[in-house]
């Protein structure tokens, strides 16, 4: 369980009297104590400000700054290395994707301690790449792996074990991995809803990772894959503004959990996401407003939402808006692009049967990837060349490569078509709108479809911003200005203060109760505030650790 904010009731530094004082003002956790303004705490606890400040200091002393020098982390290691140093050492470890050229494009391979996003259309190859990574992480270090295992969370489909096996068999780098080992090291779980994802990331997954570490059985988890996040955030025409606000909160909650997992356990986290049609507006700023610091969303978002290395690549953009884009360290886009080439000898990983006759389906047994695209018109022996663009990354410069999908997985072509953006161009292109196939406004509740004609007034906000960013704005700009859009009053101070007073006064909490609470807290590792036991939580979201029978599913890949 990832630590919730320490509860004051069990905090060793506070006296009983101090805890009681703070409890009166409903200050129950360290978080409450440091985030609530001191004046407000003083008012709620009915004491002078000068009594509160030392308590805040006390709490802060209990969590001193735990910095480590690079010498501590990377210098010769001692037995004395504490947990924090060890954790920091686990981040930034690189492992191969199974393809050298791709590794170089990503800055040396996939790195742990980061959140990577792979966006693309449904048949672009996202899942292919994810499956390949699930294998690659298992490789021994001598071959560029981390000797780790993978947790693969799926939102709408089961894990494609057949395809996994096919890649493992066809790609020479995986030939040493026995298939028994392989499946033991890919753990999968269905995530049907946002609430289940939050539960898994906060409780089930950390427990799983730690148990494996403690027991020492099996390889430690080093890779987490979520396939696909965008599917949990589908919107309909009935989506209300309140829902959008809530969804923008969900994104930030999920992302905080992901980053905590990444740094706590040294995981590489790969999130698959969808694309939507890009809405090309007529109004692109030709120059920044010299008096105003804001950047026009519609104009600038295309630089982090879309790829521009080939004509047409920018017809699609990543979904979930700025609110999600801010959360990822690297964004990789996969596109089909419709280019075809006759490839004589494909530099595919060892698969000589690369005569692509899509009718015989030898390219890939997975129907998703090859169904429409590979089938050229009339017995075409050409291969679909796809494009992979690193739109942004904190560890590598933006870059693009061409790739194909083979039985052995993803294979990058060494002679990729150069990016059209590699030539110097002026900052802002002249407004030449590409006719959008369909407008994203289809997804929004109150939008009307937009004709592509020149306008002098800006289009309605609903078409300028991604839906989740609308949720973000609504949350922050609404006059009631709290997270009160959830429907309940999140500020009980003003309304319910008297009732709370009465409640606390009548409820005598004794020292013994504190002690017994503490016992529960440490044994389960579950936050005291949660009501119900963890199993009922799991049952509620349909995961039921004991409940699932072992023979569900035909393959013996292990399940969480």
């Amino acid at each position, binding site marked *: 369980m990832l630590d919730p904010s320490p509860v004051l009731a069990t905090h060793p*530094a506070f006296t009983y009297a101090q805890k009681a004082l703070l409890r009166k003002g409903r200050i129950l956790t*360290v978080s409450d104590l*440091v*985030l609530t*303004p001191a004046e407000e705490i003083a008012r709620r606890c009915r004491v002078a400000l000068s009594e509160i400040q*030392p*308590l805040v*200091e*006390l709490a802060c*002393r*209990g*969590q*001193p*700054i*735990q*910095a*480590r*020098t*690079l010498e501590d982390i*990377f*210098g010769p290691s001692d*037995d004395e290395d*504490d*947990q924090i140093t060890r954790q920091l050492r686990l*981040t930034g470890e690189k492992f191969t994707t199974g393809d050298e050229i791709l590794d170089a494009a990503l800055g040396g391979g996939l790195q742990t301690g980061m959140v990577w996003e792979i966006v693309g259309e449904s048949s672009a190859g996202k899942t292919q790449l994810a499956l390949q990574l699930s294998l690659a992480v298992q490789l021994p270090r001598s071959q560029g792996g981390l000797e780790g295992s993978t947790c693969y969370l799926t939102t709408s489909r089961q894990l494609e074990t057949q395809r996994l096996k096919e890649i493992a068999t066809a790609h020479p780098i995986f030939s040493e991995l026995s298939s028994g080992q392989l499946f033991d090291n890919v753990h999968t779980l269905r995530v049907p809803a946002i609430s289940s994802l939050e539960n898994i990331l906060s409780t089930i997954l950390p427990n799983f990772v730690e148990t494996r570490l403690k027991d020492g059985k099996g390889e430690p988890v080093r890779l987490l894959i979520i396939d696909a996040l965008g599917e949990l955030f589908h919107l309909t025409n009935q989506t209300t*503004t309140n829902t959008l606000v809530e969804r923008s*909160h969900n994104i*930030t909650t999920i992302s905080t959990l992901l*980053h905590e997992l990444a*740094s706590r356990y040294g995981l590489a986290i790969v999130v698959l996401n969808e694309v939507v049609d890009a809405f090309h507006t007529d109004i692109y700023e030709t120059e*920044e407003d*010299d*008096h105003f*610091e*804001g*950047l*026009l*969303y*519609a104009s600038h*978002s295309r*630089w*982090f939402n879309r790829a521009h290395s080939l004509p047409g690549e920018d017809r699609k953009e990543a979904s979930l*808006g*700025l*609110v999600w884009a*801010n959360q*990822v360290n690297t*964004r990789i886009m996969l596109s089909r692009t419709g280019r075809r080439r006759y490839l004589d000898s494909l530099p595919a990983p060892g698969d000589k049967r690369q005569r692509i006759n899509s009718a015989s389906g030898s390219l890939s047994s997975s129907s998703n990837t090859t169904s429409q695209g590979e089938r050229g018109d009339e017995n075409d022996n050409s291969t679909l060349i796809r494009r992979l663009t690193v*739109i*942004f990354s904190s560890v590598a410069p933006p870059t693009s490569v061409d790739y194909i999908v083979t039985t052995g997985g993803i294979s990058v072509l060494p002679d990729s078509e150069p990016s059209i953006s590699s030539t*110097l161009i002026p*900052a802002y292109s002249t407004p030449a709108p590409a006719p959008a196939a369909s407008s994203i406004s289809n997804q929004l509740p109150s939008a009307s479809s937009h004709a592509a004609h020149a306008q002098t007034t*800006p289009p309605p*906000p*609903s078409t300028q911003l991604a839906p989740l960013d*609308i949720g973000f704005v609504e*949350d*922050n*700009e609404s006059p009631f200005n709290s997270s009160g859009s959830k429907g309940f009053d*999140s500020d009980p101070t003003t309304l319910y203060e008297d009732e709370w007073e009465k409640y606390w006064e009548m409820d005598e909490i004794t020292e013994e109760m504190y002690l017994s609470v503490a016992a529960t807290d440490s044994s389960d590792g579950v936050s005291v505030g949660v009501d119900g036991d963890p199993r009922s939580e799991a049952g509620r979201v349909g995961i039921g650790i004991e409940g699932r029978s072992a023979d569900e599913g035909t393959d013996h890949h292990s399940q969480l």
Partner: protein
Amino acid sequence: MSTRALSSLPLPPSTLAVLKESGYETLGDLKCYQSPDQLTDGKPLAPILLSLDDDKGYTKALKIPLSASQSLFSATQDPSRTGASSSASPLTQSLASIVSSRKRSLDVIATQCSPVDSLLNGGLRRGHILEISGPPGSPKELIAKGIMNSFIMAGEEVLFVDCQNATNPASLDELLKNPRHRRLVSYVEMHTLPELMIFFNNTTNYLASRPNIALIVLNSISFPFLNAFTLKKSAKSVLLEQIKQKLLKLCTNRNMTIVSTTQLSTKLIKPDGSSGSFDTEGARGMMMAPFGAAYLPPGRSYRLQVTLDMGRSGTLRLLSSPNTRTKPSGDGNRKDQPRQMVNQNVIIKQRFLLGNGNLISLNEVA
């Protein structure tokens, strides 16, 4: 002092073992030390000789890592424990560190990034704050790392605070040309707002024990705030104000140079410049630094915005600098006095090209 057991403190088990072996069981046993430096430096009143091993910051006899000494020291300075034998206030800096911080005079530090240097008129002034904001993918950290490099090359220490896993220790390590510089760079990470506020609360004590830290990088400082959506806006403002006071003190008392990076968030802005909402007619969706300059002391802060387009070229804009005043505008002699009126503040721009790990200036647009 107190009879609080050392085992109740958040210290690594190895440290506890060493302390116990050496006969230190409670906080009271350590009362003779007035600062972590003493714990590791060795002017002790206790019989055990301690000395600082220069390269590693370890105590030879006690073998406590410097970081653990700091935790111990913070705990011993607990103000709520009365009867502390030490009369020294926790805020006392050693004379040496005061002298050394004043010695670092009003330097201008080259950022190793020429477009930034030109916008800042030469470089970043010591004892000042540079905020770098930008959309996802913009080279904010690149600029921050360049500044770090300047300090490291000068042998000064840096504290890197990462609020979003944007930069892990391995990537900082790659910056270093000389492994001996590793001890100059400290790294700490956090993700949540309580952790960030506790961090700021503890900086004075921490820096008292690390007097050679001359640069603090606050990476993705917006992240904990943006993700704390249950917190009321008014509470966030109070926290931002607290941070502003803290940063100001760091600059003035310790001559600390600070670089912060922040992401942008979405706002709807009406034609008159004020913020609107979903239903406002004519509102344009904009991306802006989420708290503006709310956490930055105005007399000490530079705000830079960096954007990238087409992957390789981009624009740097100096949004504000300490010279900006809130005088009402006259007639806007922009060219002559570009920075005088904040209401009519002209933002100064510089185009750049993303080269190999650095920014190269293109034609200047003023």
